[in-house]
């Protein structure tokens, strides 16, 4: 290994390492014999004061220390030591390398055991002794928050933030605040809570209301966005520290057959609700003591909240003796609290439910609506004349969500909603720091869920904006202004919208999430992600011991594959190939094509590029970049006469240790085959 500067190695062990077959005494001797390094053997089970005393004696002097802690399952077993190092000894966390010796213990014989341990320590030592400390910086931020929309969640967010002392701009598309209560009639008077919210939004001195507003442009990033808002008075530019997006849903009636839409006996769900609210008008269409009448609801099966609306207007009709009420649905959407019971109750008070693969066709005959369908239970074609047919309405995301997502550089969400379809964003974050999506912006949900998401987003805003200043990393992702030629590749590829420019590219370290996509794409190598720098990776590759075969370098995303690797070696003793070299990457997007090619130059027999599953990457596209680079690298390898099967791309999740093992085994098999050939 090439230890670039003084390294303090702490071998944290009780007798248990020997239990696994690793001779820690010899390991200590070996480590002590390495150039530039000192070694301390420390039993993590010692009392805390004793641990601290020994650590102090070992790490004396004022100069910053670079420390490597090697242990079995260090995050559990050596956690006191790690905590002392960072919290008491003030060692910069970026200058601590934590090595899990578990993999070594999987080896069957003591010889292989210690070789693997040496290899793991060596690789990590060469990287950590080239690491630079990352410090923190306090940055001024704007404490004003932009709340987008006038849904319940938006109103609640505005009031909560204003109460916490954050000035709020609340922008919404309509002329007046008009929230929609999901599951209730749109014209229904607001309940006490919503009325109170509206009153507070309107009267709160810290909330500024901007009706009829659209977002034209959003510049800069978290903490200091500059948004240009198109209002009836013209364009205004505002500085905001964060945004909470919760634009209201809209209701769209089911498409009706031509001619049927305008018939007085064919109503939309909203029209029926209006009718029921006006008894005199209702009496005209549904007279009290007339002969038997038939009312049919079509649909209301898009969501439990749609069904809730249908059932609540069916209820007064069911209470009437002379009305037969039918409900035609594809699926009974009862997947919400209380809905199964509500449907059951309606059925026991007379609601007749038809579940059909296709909703009936609606025609007019004798000035009455008529429904034709195939009854799966009776197994025959049916045609029913009705006195009233009610077409359901579907909740739709706000129409300009797509435009808003584009202005804000958000990855689009499922079905026209705003938050990217990636579980890493749960509950309310997006690919852009400082932009949160809640309630109606995320999906169709009840008030409880919308409230919960608002709470979560308000927490996030508080964490981000604090009291006007915030803490960001300093020196994690840096542009070498001497090398940058302002091609703006970085600006285009950054999944987090963190790159702006003056006469050179600038990375906003508050918005940057350290994924390294930019660094790997920059044609001039002008960006380095500290502690995942090119020379660190090269130094790690240089430690490859030619005696260990087959030499498999695994570049692993720390969010998925790295965890799967750890889960695999802990689950059961596994015998990974002796030359297996695990390299942790901040994101698969940081795996340069150069790294892959260099790995082969430095003698790798095979290379694994292990990323998150598609749509599961914290940076959304890091895994895609990795895949594209692997494809390109394969072609280059083939040109250079290297069998491209030696390079494998695979996606994993943290909880798939079996898939990790399978990936290593299958590459090892390929390599075995190639060697034999």
């Amino acid at each position, binding site marked *: 290994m090439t230890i670039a500067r003084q390294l303090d190695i702490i071998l944290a062990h*009780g*007798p248990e390492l*020997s*239990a*696994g077959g690793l001779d820690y005494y010899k390991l200590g001797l070996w480590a002590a014999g390495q150039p530039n390094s000192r070694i301390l053997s420390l039993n993590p089970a010692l009392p805390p004061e004793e641990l601290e005393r020994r650590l102090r004696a070992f790490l004396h002097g004022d100069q910053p220390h670079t420390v490597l802690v090697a242990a*079995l*399952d260090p*995050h*559990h*077993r050596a956690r006191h030591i790690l905590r002392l190092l960072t919290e008491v000894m003030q060692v910069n966390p970026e200058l601590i390398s934590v090595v899990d010796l578990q993999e070594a*213990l999987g080896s069957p014989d003591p010889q292989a055991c210690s070789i693997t341990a040496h290899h793991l320590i060596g690789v990590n030592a060469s990287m950590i002794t080239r690491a630079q400390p990352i410090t923190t910086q306090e940055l001024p931020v704007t404490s004003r928050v932009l709340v987008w929309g006038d849904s319940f969640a938006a109103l609640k967010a505005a009031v909560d933030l204003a109460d916490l002392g954050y000035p709020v701009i609340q922008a919404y598309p309509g002329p007046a605040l008009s929230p929609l209560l999901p599951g209730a009639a749109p014209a229904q008077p607001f309940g006490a*809570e919503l009325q109170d919210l509206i009153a507070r939004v309107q009267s709160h001195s810290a909330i500024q209301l901007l009706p009829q507003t659209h977002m034209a442009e959003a510049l800069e990033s978290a903490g200091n966005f500059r948004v240009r808002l198109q209002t009836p008075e013209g364009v205004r530019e505002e500085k905001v520290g964060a945004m909470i997006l919760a634009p209201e849903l809209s209701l769209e009636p089911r498409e009706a057959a031509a001619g049927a839409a305008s018939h007085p006996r064919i109503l939309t769900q909203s029209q029926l609700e209006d009718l029921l609210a006006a008894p005199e008008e209702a009496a005209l269409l549904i007279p009290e003591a007339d002969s038997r009448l038939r009312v049919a609801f079509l649909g209301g099966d*898009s*969501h439990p909240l749609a069904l809730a609306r249908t059932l609540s207007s069916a209820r007064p009709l069911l209470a009437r003796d002379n009305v037969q009420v039918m409900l035609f649905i594809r*699926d009974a*959407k009862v*997947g*919400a*609290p*209380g809905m*199964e*019971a509500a449907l*059951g109750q309606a059925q026991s008070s007379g609601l007749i439910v038809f579940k059909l*693969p296709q909703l009936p066709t609606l025609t007019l005959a004798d000035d009455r609506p008529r429904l034709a369908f195939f009854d*799966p*239970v009776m*197994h025959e074609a049916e045609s029913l004349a009705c006195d009233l047919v009610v077409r359901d309405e579907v909740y739709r995301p706000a129409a300009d969500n797509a435009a808003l997502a584009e202005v804000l550089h958000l990855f689009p969400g*499922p*079905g026209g909603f705003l938050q990217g*379809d990636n*579980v*890493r964003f*749960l*509950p309310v974050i997006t690919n852009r720091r400082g932009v949160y999506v809640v309630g109606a912006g995320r*999906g169709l949900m*009840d008030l*409880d*869920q919308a*409230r*919960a998401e*608002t*709470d*979560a987003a308000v*927490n996030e805003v508080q964490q981000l904006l604090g009291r006007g200043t915030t803490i960001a990393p300093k020196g994690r992702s840096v542009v070498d202004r001497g090398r940058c030629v302002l091609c703006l590749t970085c600006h285009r590829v950054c999944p987090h919208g963190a790159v702006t420019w003056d006469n050179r590219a600038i990375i906003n370290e508050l918005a940057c999430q350290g994924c390294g996509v930019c660094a790997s794409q920059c044609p001039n190598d002008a960006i380095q992600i500290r502690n995942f720098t090119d020379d660190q990776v090269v130094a790690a590759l240089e430690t490859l011991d030619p005696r260990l075969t087959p030499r498999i370098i695994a570049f692993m995303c720390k*969010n*998925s594959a790295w*965890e799967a690797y750890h*889960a695999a070696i*802990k*689950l059961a003793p596994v015998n990974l190939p002796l030359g297996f070299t695990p390299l942790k990457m901040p994101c698969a997007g940081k795996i340069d094509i150069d790294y892959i090619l260099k790995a082969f130059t430095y003698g790798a027999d095979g290379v694994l590029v292990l990323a*998150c*599953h*598609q*749509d*599961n990457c914290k940076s959304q596209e890091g895994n895609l970049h990795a895949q594209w680079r692997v494809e390109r690298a394969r072609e280059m390898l083939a040109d250079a006469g290297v069998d491209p099967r030696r390079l494998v791309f695979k996606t994993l999740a*943290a*909880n*798939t*240790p*079996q898939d990790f093992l399978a990936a290593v085994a299958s590459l090892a098999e390929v390599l075995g085959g190639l060697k034999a050939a």
Partner: protein
Amino acid sequence: MNMDNPKKFSAVILGGGIAGISAALELARLGQEVALVEKTPFFGGRAANFCCKATDACQKCGACLVDDRLKALFQESRITLLSHAELTGCSRENGLFHLVVKQQPEVINPEGCVDCGLCYEECPAADKGAILTTAVTQNHPRYAVNPGACLYFLDGSCQVCQQICPPTARAIDLARPAKTLELTAKALVVATGYRPSDPACRPHYGYGRLPHVVAGYELEEMLRNGTGPGGPGAEVPRRIGFIQCVGSRDQEHPYCSQVCCAYTLRLARLLKHRWPEAEVTSFYMDLQETGRQSPQFQAEARREVKMVRALPGDLHATPDGRVKIRFMEEDSGQPAAADFDLLVLSVGIGPGDDNPALAALLQASLTPDGFFQAADPDHRTQTSQPGLFLAGTAEGPRDIAGCISQATAAARQVSQYVKES
């Protein structure tokens, strides 16, 4: 810990599943000192054992989030972790909760144990649960002696594990005592989760009687741990069936569990992806749109999986050891039959076993279905008792995503309550 000097917390959270973990992490982030009390020796709850359902792309089941949050949990210093511990006493004085927590003896010392599993292998009562183990590797140790079933604790007749544990690890000390801890907390969060409905609750589905009939959670665990179906040495099932709504939407469970449709379709698609030649059928009542599924999801699922709207009436074993199902075909209205090599019962979410006792202890009430009663349908993190909060499936069925957002909200409300009190 000293009995006269109870340890003080802003909040104590009961239950170390995804809901409890999320609440604890968010509270720690908000600067509160919290304790997380988990009944079993291991953290992560039910969902920690579930499998990744990604095909070519992530299917957004959320299972990997449990691993993610667990890792953060073990690195967070503001959270006191009390595993293998249960609440045995609770009283309130001036709003402050005085809690008594009984913690089982820490027979296996985490500092020594190397998770070699020898104790488990050699324990004569392991099959009775004397040594508990988990496949969730974030936990350490992954083994724990269970005094309720261990022969040493029952009658002193066995010390095999203590003797077998490697001399260098010497992690087992059966004589270690149980602990009784006294804690105070300004707020309490109940996140004790659920119990999957009993797959045998509909006896005619033959769970435990017919071959190749497994419960949904068993399939999840088998897939996660690579122990079949189709695992090493096992035959790949060609005809796979799922039956949905087992233990949901019936007389005893008059509610929808809100997760089974989604997990069934995801598992079905996963199996189809693994074995494209397999034929996957799902018997269902109604497909639910829960959570935030993309509109394409169900359409794609319907393309890959044969969806049959019918609850099978009659199941029996065929001479060649398969399961035959008779059902009514929706399109033709005619009786039909099909054989399956693997039949999965998609069980739902039932109330937690401890709910009645815990509710009595906390003077909280339960819903008719047996879940913890929230203040009202629009405030499902709160109860009628100030300072007592709910998170996750303890309050009612919800998926992992729902648990996370509800728990995060509970954390905010707890921290506001704590500041005001």
